[in-house]
């Protein structure tokens, strides 16, 4: 069982290696091309790609990330499970805006309106909302029951 500091370094190493490996895939870099670009031997990149990072130093991985132009945040925490490597500023894989500008503007204005509510007002609105939904359900069931009764009535 490694000590917390050793476990934290291990977690950072494997997370950072994962980010480098993903970066290579995103850029379509094979190990040979990446080894030239990052100025590291190809077997080192093979280890990174396969997550075998026990004998790679954290410093080397940071060097590779810097040479790749990959901005990362290394985070340690109170326990090793909180330690990780985060890629900052990478573009999101999905579009950030709705297809319709009108729909996007409507949604944004709704969020802004909600933002002005205090937490207390939000919980009160939550209760009112759930009660209204419940009334709607009951009204729907009532209407359906009335329709069924009417359909069964002899003509």
């Amino acid at each position: 069982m490694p000590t917390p500091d050793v476990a934290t370094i291990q977690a950072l190493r494997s997370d950072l290696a994962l980010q480098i490996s993903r970066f290579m895939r995103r850029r379509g870099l094979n190990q040979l091309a990446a080894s030239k670009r990052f100025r590291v031997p190809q077997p080192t990149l093979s280890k990174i790609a396969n997550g075998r990072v026990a004998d790679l130093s954290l410093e080397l991985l940071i060097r590779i990330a810097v040479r790749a132009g990959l901005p990362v945040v290394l985070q340690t925490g109170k326990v090793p499970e909180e330690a990780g490597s985060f890629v900052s500023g990478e573009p999101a894989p999905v579009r950030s805006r709705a297809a319709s500008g009108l729909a996007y503007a409507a949604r944004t204005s709704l969020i802004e309106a909600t933002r002005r509510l205090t937490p207390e007002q939000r919980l009160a609105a939550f209760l009112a909302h759930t009660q209204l939904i419940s009334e709607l359900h009951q009204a729907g069931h009532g209407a359906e029951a009335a329709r069924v009764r009417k359909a069964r009535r002899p003509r």
Partner: protein
Amino acid sequence: MRTRRAGQSALLLLDAVAVLKARSIDYAVIGAMAASVHGELRGTADADALISVTVSTLAALRTVFKKAGFETELRRGDADDPIPAMLILSDTHGNRVDLLGGLRGLDPQAFSRTIDVPFSGDTLRIIGREDFIAMKCFAGGPQDIADAQLALRGAQEPVDLDLLRRVTRRFGRAAADVLEQVLAR
């Protein structure tokens, strides 16, 4: 009980919380109620809370809630389920409260970061914004990601990014990946 009709699960939660408080059990409101505080207002049929107890204590609590007039059901998660057990409380109107007996990966300190929100003459402890976003990243569904983004965008005070990254990473690399997506949008 405060509930008078259907659609009042939030009030049933207040009754459940009174029982928890009497036994000094930490809790944090999560789910749609927490989403309503941190992000988007929306209704739901039930109310959810995390409680800081073991599965055996949760089983013992079932008897306590039964005596207090709740209808109860205890469900246990599979070995790989991040929720070890859940106590479902309900009333005669169909209102329902789900008490989650823990969540794998959750920072135990999350209970000390809850925010007190006045509600219907009482106070509820709502899960903190960073922990809420982290849990949503862990859940990882489309609605969860939307909730996490709204919680980030709707924040009136700066979000503690260091804390957010730490508590999300506790849930695993997949949750951390979702957080990266959420932060990048």
